[in-house]
């Protein structure tokens, strides 16, 4: 790097970093913290936060239970079949959330086969907490699979071979060697999935406009109703995101 090149780099990069940082800082500087805390006790805000937290927690647990075994299998199976499955797992990550909501609506919506079937036995898969969970799981669970897959792949297969050569079966080996070594990655994946579920907006708008989650409430605030309630919710979401960043490091 000649000095000029370094300068150009740092100026360009600096603009980008400011573009990320300034708006977020503006959020925290715009309202006195006291006001935000007062607004947080608004019962409708509490209800919205509760819906988001419960939904995101369920989604994360479902993603972990279904996803971690899959990612272990994917990490140890090196075949064309497994790389197709990885492609399918990554698909929801690159799919726009609004499209995710739309395709889910075509399966679980009021006029869709599964949606009608579920409604017939008294379970409503749209405009319900279940709808929220369905949307959040679709969008967030791939984070658990992809991050755990990377974590499992980072565990040297030689260590598993060594454990088995020492007389330990595959289950013991996975529990005592592979899982402990992959755990930081799995936790990171869960944190990412939780944050993604908390922030889910596009798919939720289509699948479950009600009960309101935090992002939906922010949108409603901006489209006219109770702008002030958007601030504590936005700050809460930023804090969850920052907490995830901290977990990731």
């Amino acid at each position, binding site marked *: 790097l000649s000095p000029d090149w370094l300068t150009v780099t740092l100026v360009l990069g600096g603009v980008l970093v400011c573009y990320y940082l300034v708006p977020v800082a503006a959020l925290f500087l715009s309202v006195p913290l006291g006001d935000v805390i007062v607004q947080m006790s608004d019962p409708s805000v509490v209800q919205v936060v509760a819906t988001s937290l419960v939904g995101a927690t369920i989604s994360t647990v479902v993603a972990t239970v279904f996803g971690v075994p899959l990612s272990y299998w994917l990490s140890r199976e090196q075949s064309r079949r497994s790389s197709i499955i990885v492609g399918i797992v990554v698909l929801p990550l690159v799919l726009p959330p609004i499209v995710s909501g739309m395709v889910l609506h075509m399966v679980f919506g009021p006029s869709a086969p599964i949606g009608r079937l579920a409604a017939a036995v008294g379970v409503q898969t749209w405009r319900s907490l279940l709808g929220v969970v369905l949307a959040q799981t679709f969008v967030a669970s791939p984070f658990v699979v992809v991050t755990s897959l990377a974590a499992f792949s980072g565990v040297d297969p*030689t260590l598993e*071979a060594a454990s*088995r*050569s*020492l007389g330990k079966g*595959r289950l013991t080996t996975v529990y005592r*060697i592979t899982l402990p*070594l992959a755990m930081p990655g799995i936790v990171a994946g869960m944190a990412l999935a939780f944050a993604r579920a908390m922030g889910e907006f596009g798919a939720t708008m289509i699948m479950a406009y009600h009960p309101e989650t935090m992002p939906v409430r922010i949108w409603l605030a901006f489209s006219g109703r109770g702008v002030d309630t958007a601030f504590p919710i936005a700050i809460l979401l930023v804090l969850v995101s920052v907490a995830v960043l901290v977990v990731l490091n």
Partner: protein
Amino acid sequence: MLELTTLRTSYDAFDLGPIDLTVENEVLAVLGPSGSGKTTLLSTIAGIVDADGGMVTLNGTELTERPPEDRDVVLVFQDGALFPHMTARENINYAATGATPIDALIETLELTEVLDRNVETLSGGERQRVALARSLATEPGALLLDEPLANLDAPIRHRLRHELRDLFVSLTIPIVYVTHNQRDAAVVSDRIAVIHDGDVHQVDTPTELFAHPETPLVASFTGNVNVFRARIADHDRLEWSGRRMCAPIDGRDVGQSVQFCIRPEHVSVVQSSTNNPNVFAGTVTKSVFQGSSYNLTVQLKHATDPVRLTLSSRTYDRLELAEQEQLRIKLNTNYIHII
């Protein structure tokens, strides 16, 4: 007793075998260059790589179809494969069956000091000793080692080589020790199997193997660099580039084309001019100091290929040799080996 019967496998487009080997309660070194299939062989015996054919049996029990954990065979990986989230002690305890006196093992391998250290902080030699203790804690029926000394510095390597030999002698189980280092193989083993491109070329005691290689490949890989073409002249003589010399012919057919070899350290320099048919005149074309000895390349008058010889610095100093110097060398009949 560990027996391999026509064992075959293919791994990463590399074909191993068929291999037949019997390992008694002894140390068998498997010696070969990298890429010769040494590690694949160990992995197949341990059950980490599946065999494509043939059989592995340990003390009469067939292991071929068993998973690694049910084979009673432990593989010590090249870098030790210690579990990084455990201390040295936890690594050893993980493997311990309960029946073994771990303490004695820890003492023998001088691990007392490092037991509670994170394994990531151990030196290469310490890692290898922990890996060995961990493997022996399972009281295995057979022990497989993959280049345990490969990544160590020369002085540690030298010490550990001798310690390993003593330890192996105290175990009475079949031990297979893979290495690409001929000195490691010679020091550590009772017998050596030379492997190349997935095939076993020769199995013999170290002294036999180094003195009497059966093929030019084994000769070159055991440092037997002087290999020449010759013809059987009569019942006790070899014709080499027009000169006849005494050699152990062992009843081969007269007129047959053969190769013979002699190790560089078995070629001696003679000072007096004699009529001995095994003494040849030549010129030193190159003389290289190697630390504890000198390597000389000698161009003989009668032959095209040069002869390499090794002299101790004591002998070298006494003879006052130098490049371009004339000299006479003797190929002692006892050390000539016909392939």
